[in-house]
C-alpha cells in the first residue's frame, strides 16, 4: 500500500519532464506512520503468515493437547477454548486454532481484495481515460452504461450473480473487480477530462504528439497521484465488501479461512465470551482503519484538492454514494 501511494514508478516519469513542478513529498503525520506500520505488518503476514502459523488453517486441534494434567477426563472440549499456551488466541467453534486461521486468512482476505482492486483499476482507468479522450459518442455510451451499473446497490448485484453462478474465488475477484470498476471509471474519467483541457496537453497536441503519447506521458502521470490515494480508499471498501459477503456466507467457502467468514462461523461463541469471533473482526478493523489513517489524515491537503475530505463534499454536492459502496 505504502508503495502505491508514493507512486514512485510514475513520479520518475513526472520528473523527466523539463518543466515539471517539484515532486510532491509524502509527509506522514504520526497517525499516518502508525497506519503505515500496521499495513506493513499485515502485508508481511500475507507472505509469511502460513509459514509462521503454529497449525494448519483446517486442522482441528487434537483433544490430547487440552488434557489438564491430573484430570481424569480423557476427552476435554476443544471448541471455543480460551487463549492458552497451546492455542494463543483460543480455538474456534470446531476446535481449530484461531491464530493460525487468522494468519492464513490474511492471505485470502487481503489477496482477494487486492486482486479485485487491481482488476477494478485496470478496467476502470482504461475505460475512464478512453471515455475522457475518446470523443463524444464513446464517452456517452460508456458513461450511460456505467451510470446504470452504479445505480444498482453493489451487494444486490453480487447477491444476484452469486445466486446464479455460485461463489468461487475467481468469481469473487472478477465480480468485485467489475462492480468497483464502475466507481473507478467515474473518477478516472473526471480527472482525465480535467487534465485533457489543460494547457500542457494543448501544447503537446500543437507539437503534433500522438494520442498514445499524450495519454501515457501527459495524462496518466498527472492523474496518478489522486488515483493512488483513491486506490487506498477503494481497497478498504473492497476489503469490507468481501468480508461482508463472506460474513453472509456467500464469499470464501469453508474450510478455507477468511476474516469475514471467521466472524460469522464463531458468532455463536459470543455469548460465552469466546475470543474467536473478535480476533478476525479486529484484524479487519485494524487493517481498514490503518489504510484510512494513511490516506485521509496524513498528507497536507491541496486547496480544492482531491483527497477524502473533498470527495465527501463532492459527493454531498450531488454525486452518487459511490465512496461508500463497499459498505453495502
Amino acid at each position, binding site marked *: 500500500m505504502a508503495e502505491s501511494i508514493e507512486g514512485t514508478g510514475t513520479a520518475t516519469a513526472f520528473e523527466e519532464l523539463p518543466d515539471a513542478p517539484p515532486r510532491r513529498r509524502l509527509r506522514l503525520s504520526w497517525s499516518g506512520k502508525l497506519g503505515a506500520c500496521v499495513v506493513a505488518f499485515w502485508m508481511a503476514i500475507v507472505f509469511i503468515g502460513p509459514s509462521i502459523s503454529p497449525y494448519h488453517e483446517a486442522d482441528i486441534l487434537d483433544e490430547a493437547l487440552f488434557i489438564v494434567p491430573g484430570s481424569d477426563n480423557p476427552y476435554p472440549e476443544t471448541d471455543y477454548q480460551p487463549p492458552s499456551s497451546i492455542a494463543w488466541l483460543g480455538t474456534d467453534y470446531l476446535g481449530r486454532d484461531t491464530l493460525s486461521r487468522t494468519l492464513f486468512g490474511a492471505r485470502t482476505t487481503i489477496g482477494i481484495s487486492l486482486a479485485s482492486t487491481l482488476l477494478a483499476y485496470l478496467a476502470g482507468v482504461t475505460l475512464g481515460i478512453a471515455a475522457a479522450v475518446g470523443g463524444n459518442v464513446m464517452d456517452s455510451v460508456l458513461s450511460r452504461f456505467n451510470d446504470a451499473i452504479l*445505480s444498482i446497490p453493489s*451487494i444486490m448485484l453480487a447477491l444476484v450473480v452469486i445466486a446464479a453462478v455460485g461463489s468461487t474465488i475467481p468469481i469473487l475477484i472478477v465480480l468485485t473487480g467489475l462492480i468497483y470498476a464502475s466507481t473507478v471509471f467515474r473518477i478516472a474519467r473526471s480527472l482525465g477530462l480535467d487534465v485533457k483541457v489543460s494547457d500542457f496537453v494543448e501544447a503537446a497536441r500543437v507539437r503534433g504528439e500522438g494520442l498514445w503519447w499524450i495519454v501515457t506521458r501527459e495524462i496518466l502521470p498527472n492523474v496518478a497521484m489522486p488515483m493512488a490515494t483513491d486506490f487506498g480508499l477503494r481497497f478498504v471498501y473492497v476489503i469490507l465488501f468481501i468480508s*461482508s459477503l463472506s460474513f453472509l456466507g456467500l464469499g470464501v467457502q469453508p474450510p478455507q479461512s477468511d476474516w469475514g467468514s471467521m*466472524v460469522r462461523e464463531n458468532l455463536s461463541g*459470543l455469548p460465552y465470551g469466546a475470543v474467536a469471533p*473478535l480476533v478476525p473482526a479486529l484484524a479487519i478493523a485494524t487493517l481498514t*482503519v490503518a489504510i484510512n489513517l494513511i490516506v485521509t489524515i496524513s498528507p497536507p491537503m491541496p486547496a480544492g484538492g482531491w483527497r477524502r475530505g473533498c470527495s465527501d463534499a463532492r459527493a454531498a454536492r450531488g454525486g452518487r454514494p459511490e465512496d461508500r459502496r463497499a459498505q*453495502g
Partner: protein
Amino acid sequence: MTLLHAILRRTAFGIATLFVVSVLIFIGTSILPGDVANIILGQMATPESLAALRAKLGLDEPAHVRYFIWLSDLLTGDLGFSKAGAGAGTIGTPISEMLMPRLANTLKLATAVAVVAVPFAVTVGLLAAMYPGTRLDRAVTFTTLGLISVPEFLVATLLVLVLAVQLGWLPATAYISGQETGWKLVRALAMPALTLVVVASSQIMRMTRATVLNVMSSPYIEMAILKGVPRKRIILRHALLNAVGPIANVIALNLAYLVSGVVIVETVFAYPGLAKLMIDAVQTRDLPLVQACAMIFCATYIVLIFVADLVSILSNPRLRHPK
C-alpha cells in the same frame, strides 16, 4: 418551465435506469447455467422430465421472450411463484404473499432508523462544523472515521456483546411476528435499529460537516466575516440556508445506502425482513424470489437517488440548466 424540464429529464433517466437494472437482474439470474427446472428436480432429473418441466414453466422460450413475460408480469404486480422454495413446504407459494409481511418488517426497521438517525446526525454534524478544530469536532471526526472503516457486522457484533451479553439490556436476536405494538415493538427493533443508526449517522455526520465547511469557505461567507457579522449569525443565516439542499441530498443518499446495510443487519439479528428473505433465497437459489427482492431493493435505491437529485435541483437553481 426549465424546472419542469429538468425534473422530467431526471424522471426519464430514472425509468431508463430501472429498465437497464431489470435487464441486468434478469441476465444475472436467467441466462446462466442451472435453471429452476434443474433445481426443482435435483437428483431425480432425467432429460425428459427436465424438458417437460421447462415447458410447463415456460423456460423453453428464448431468453428475450422470457424477459418480456417476466417484465410484464412484474409491471402488473404478478411476481410469480417461489419455484425452489425458501424452505421446506414453500414450493409454489406466491412470491407476493411471501414478500408482503417481510417488506412491512423492513419498512418498520427503516422508518425507526430514519426517525432517530437523521435529526441526531445532522445536529452533531452541524455542531462539528460550527466549531471546527475543537475537541467536539475532533472527537466526531475520529469516531466517524473509525465507524465507517469497520464492517457493519463488526458494529453489530460489538453492540450484541455489550448490550445483550454483558449488560443484558436487550435481546440478542430481533424476532418479530408482525403483531407487536408499542413497547414490545421498540424492544424487538432496538438492536438492529441501533446498529443501523450508528452506521448511517456516522456517514450523515461526516457529510453534513463536510458540506457546511464547504459552504463556509465560499466567498460570500468571507464577505460576511469581513463585514463583521457575528459567527453564529453567519452560520445560521448564511451558511445553513445554503447548505440545506446539500444536506437533504446527503440524507436521501444515506437512506438509499441503508438498502444494503439492512442486508447485513437483518442477517446478524435474524430479523425476518426482506433482506433476510433474499439471502435465504440466494442460498437456496430460488431465482424468482431473488429477482423480485432485487427489483424491490434496486427500485427503492433508484427512487431515493432520484429524490436526492431532485432535492439538489430544487435547492440550487444553477443545476436547472444542464450544460
